[in-house]
């Protein structure tokens, strides 16, 4: 039996996931990108309440590979944006001080 359900759903802010939800099922959110727009990717505990939460959130279920691809697409964009964010005569250390370290790749569980 699968441990997790994977899906996308837009985080609408307050009330999107509640204190009770967090106690009822595992939930972890990641930044994703579908090629056109940013998208919120969720890894959800595979129980009835988790599945109902994704449905209530008007979410779309994904396979793990699909979810990971969305997260990788966001990581790729963030890394490219980091590479392109240069200031003339700025050292590598100064760049890190200004915008932080280059983003890495995230592997979803």
């Amino acid at each position, binding site marked *: 039996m699968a441990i997790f359900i994977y899906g996308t759903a837009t985080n609408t802010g*307050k009330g999107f996931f509640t204190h009770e939800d967090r*106690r009822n099922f595992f939930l972890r959110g990641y930044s994703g990108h579908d090629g056109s727009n940013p998208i919120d990717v969720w890894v959800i505990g595979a129980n009835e309440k988790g599945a109902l939460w994704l449905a209530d959130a008007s979410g779309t279920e994904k396979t793990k590979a699909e979810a990971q691809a969305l997260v990788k697409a966001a990581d790729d964009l963030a890394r490219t944006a980091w590479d392109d964010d240069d200031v003339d005569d700025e050292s590598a250390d100064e760049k890190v001080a200004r915008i932080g370290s280059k983003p890495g790749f995230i592997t979803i569980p």
Partner: protein
Amino acid sequence: MTTYKALKGKKVKTLSSDPPAAASEGQVWYNSSGYDFKTSVSAEAWASGGDLVSGRRNPVTFGIQTAAVVAGGHTPGGDFSTSETYDGTSFAEGNNLLVAMDTSASAGTSTAGLVFGGNPGGLTETVSYNGTSYSEENNLTAARYALGGSGTQTAAIAAGGSPQTNTGSALSEEWNGTSWTEGNNLGTGRYKPAQTGTQTAALFVGGDTGPANVANVEEYNGTSWSEVNNYPSTLTFAASSGIQTDALVFMGDIGPGYGVKTFGYDGTSWSSRPDMATAGGNTEGCGTSSAALAASGGPASGRTSSSEEFTVAASVKVITDS
């Protein structure tokens, strides 16, 4: 077979409906409508909060969970000066900082705040907030960014940071409501820490010495810093809430990558608390150890406009034998 009365000296009440969860914590009763034995238990969790108007990395956050200010930070367009207020439900744009301030530190409440230090270029800038607008104050004695800050608008402490060289500073300064005065240094100079507490009882957690991220934790007693039990891992750009003897430290870069972990500190040791839903860092956090706010910030792959709220809530549970 023993009975509840034999163990506790009293009978279990029979009720046709459940009492309020918050008022019945720790009690046991029989619900005659549902034919269940029930109790009320308290539990901690992170839930989603309101979305910011503008997501940003490295903002300052001061106040409490239901009355907070998130200001400054960095977006792809550069450092910026916007400031937002949070009422526990939604964020609203307020008056701007006087200058762009990124990776600064803060102290105080949503009606009496203080913001100091940061980028661009290493700042000594200090501004106060009265709940409506920011005013210029006397500067820090030494420019630095990614420093720790805590306390109140009239009694704050600024510690650590980096003088724009990516090496950790051990400087510690006290604010008396008018000016900054240099105090005794941290034991280990570093930047990107989490800091919470007061001017006379502060907690400084993790950070980057320049060569390396560290798990070191120091306490300030109003005069000097002393080393205490380490955080469970190395940690930079984490957020915090609470006081020195009852603190929460959450999210941050646990190297490599941003985490969801939350740990509590009781003045002596660290204990694991419920994870956040979304990994992040590069934000300060505010509130208490039982009602904290984590707003905006990382993860490293982008800026987020979302927030999460840590709360302790009681709920009624059916007692089962499994």
